């Protein structure tokens, strides 16, 4: 089932900062986290999860766009695409998040599970698409009443 792209938040702008990339590499087990001060290294694959630090304080979330029970919400999957390779330390990226799909499935125990798919587009100042982040969130079936 397809649906119109629904804006959730943004556009916001982030800077890919060396110190943050070093910290994130170390926190995700990379032995080569000790990037030198003049590094323009590519970001690790999941680094763009750090948009949290750049979102406006009153940024909307999926929960503002869809009526969800947070207690039943799971992160089902996450992916990132880098059409021309990962962005590098020093880059400035502008990003916007959309709800792009919503569908239901009957779960193992017969209740209805809801799947919500969000996409975040990251663009360079030129307008080029630097990355896409895509997450699937699952609202599990309500407990049998």
């Amino acid at each position, binding site marked *: 089932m397809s649906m119109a792209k629904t804006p959730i938040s943004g556009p916001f702008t982030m800077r890919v900062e060396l110190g943050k990339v070093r910290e994130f590499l*170390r926190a995700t087990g990379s032995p*080569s986290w000790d990037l030198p001060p003049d590094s323009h290294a590519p970001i*690790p694959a*999941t680094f763009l999860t750090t948009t949290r630090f750049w979102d406006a304080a009153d940024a909307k979330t999926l929960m503002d766009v869809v009526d969800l029970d947070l207690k039943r919400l799971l992160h089902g999957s996450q*992916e990132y695409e*880098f059409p021309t*390779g*990962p962005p590098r330390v020093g880059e400035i990226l502008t990003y916007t998040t959309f709800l792009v799909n919503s569908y239901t499935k009957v779960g193992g125990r017969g209740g209805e599970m809801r799947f919500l798919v969000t996409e975040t587009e990251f663009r360079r100042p030129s307008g080029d698409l630097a990355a896409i982040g895509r997450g699937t969130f699952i609202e599990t079936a309500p407990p049998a009443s």
Partner: protein
Amino acid sequence: MGGLDELSVGDRAPQRGFGPVTMTDIVRYQGASGDMNPIHHDPGFAERAGFPAVFSVGMLQAGLLANFACDWLGYENLRSFGVRFRDKVWPGDRLVFDAEVTAVHEKDSVRMVDLELTCTREGGGTALAGTAAFASPLND
């Protein structure tokens, strides 16, 4: 590294392990990522939410798995990475990472290598199932 050009379907990365996962690993990742959900570091909060203990952040395992793949084939060569979250990971778990080449093909005169990735809990099941695609630099 020999190079993406030398890989064929079925080739596997040297397996890597991580662990035991500690509270400090979880807290360090939460600080680095900005995801401060207390369910991952506050035992009282986790118990009130119905869990026996705190559990790791799924995206920590995702980051570990991604870096395992990129340490093998090059961070700059990555074109996509994705994971499906299967089982939770708990403090004390030892994780094992595997990568296998599932396809080698040309796309827009660039050589692409597709990987299947898994993060497994020692003594348990699959925590994450993932895929990644890398582009060979020689044709870029």
